[in-house]
């Protein structure tokens, strides 16, 4: 945050637009570069959360699966805060299914 941002905030003015432009661009380029449309990303996010929550209890409110891009490399970043490990181990049939997904 810069001095200008602080002054703008104190005066209740809109923050300078350059930062907004940069953030919007980074987001849209991450999608452009990966050729994933938001719908597909949403579906992937749901499925990832589903798999992970079989093993651990995650904070769905805080959890986030996004695309980030740096130096023209796009990465899928999942930030999933774990509340606690689930005590009963996952059902045995879940494991082969997961492996099948990973190798396909």
């Amino acid at each position, binding site marked *: *945050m*810069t*001095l*200008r941002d*602080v*002054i703008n905030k104190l005066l209740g003015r809109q923050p*300078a*637009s*350059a*930062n907004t*432009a*940069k953030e*919007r*661009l*980074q987001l*849209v*380029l991450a999608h*452009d*570069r990966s050729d994933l449309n938001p719908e597909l990303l949403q579906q992937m996010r749901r499925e990832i959360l589903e798999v992970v929550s079989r093993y651990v209890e995650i904070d769905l409110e805080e959890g986030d699966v996004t695309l980030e891009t740096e*130096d*023209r490399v796009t990465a899928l970043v999942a930030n999933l805060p774990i509340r606690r490990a689930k005590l009963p181990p996952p059902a045995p049939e879940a494991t082969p299914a997961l492996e099948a997904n990973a190798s396909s």
Partner: protein
Amino acid sequence: MAAASTRYILICSGKGGVGKTTLTANLGIALAKQGARTAVLDADFGLRNLDLLLGLENRIVYTAQEVLSESCRLEQALVKHKQEPNLALLPAGNPRMLEWLQPDDMQKIAAMLGEHFDYVLIDAPAGIEGGFKNAMAAAREAIVVTTPEVSAVRDADRVIGLLNSEGVKPIQLVLNRVRPKMMANQEMLAVTDVTDILALPLLGLVLEDEQVIVSTNRGEPLTLNGNGSPAARAYTNVARRLQGEEVPLIDPSKERQGLRATIGRLMQTKLF
């Protein structure tokens, strides 16, 4: 045989209106003035304008179309610039050429030009469709032109993706129409924002300059008559850097002086 040392440079942007043709014209003149034999090839067959910016629109007899169909020799189609005889334009043909033109055709033209010139600058059309791909086929390296605006940067990114997949390199960036005052107020993407996002080395930084419009009105590129204006200096420096000379980039925040500029810089200090 094309000379091995000839550089085939594509000038492209994705988005229209960011200054591709202006850069091609000015860079062509600047390179010619520095003694390099330079050909500028208008690859924008649909909407050609390079002839107009160079002031050569009335001297076109033949175009790339006649050269390709072998109804004239290359030398007959080339329009030599009167004041800068090191520079020649190969005009774009009829827009109907788009129906049959193939990447091979562009490679053929570029190779012919390579026999006579040190630099072949290819002015690409806007967009990323057939016309652009034809132009890209003729190039070995590229200059991507963009302005510090979200739409231009996004489109430039698409073009860079295509250039990468075709193995065109090096790819360098010219940031055009920079407004130092807006940048100082953080109401325009910073130079480093754009270079970080596109991950390209910066070949040139051109300030917004009203003289560009005056020069296009006259058909006399700014680099033709000395380096009187900021944009003319910037274009000349792009040419010098292309030739391998080390020329420092301008710092937009230093372009403004006085108390307001100092306060502007102070306001940009990162607090946390």
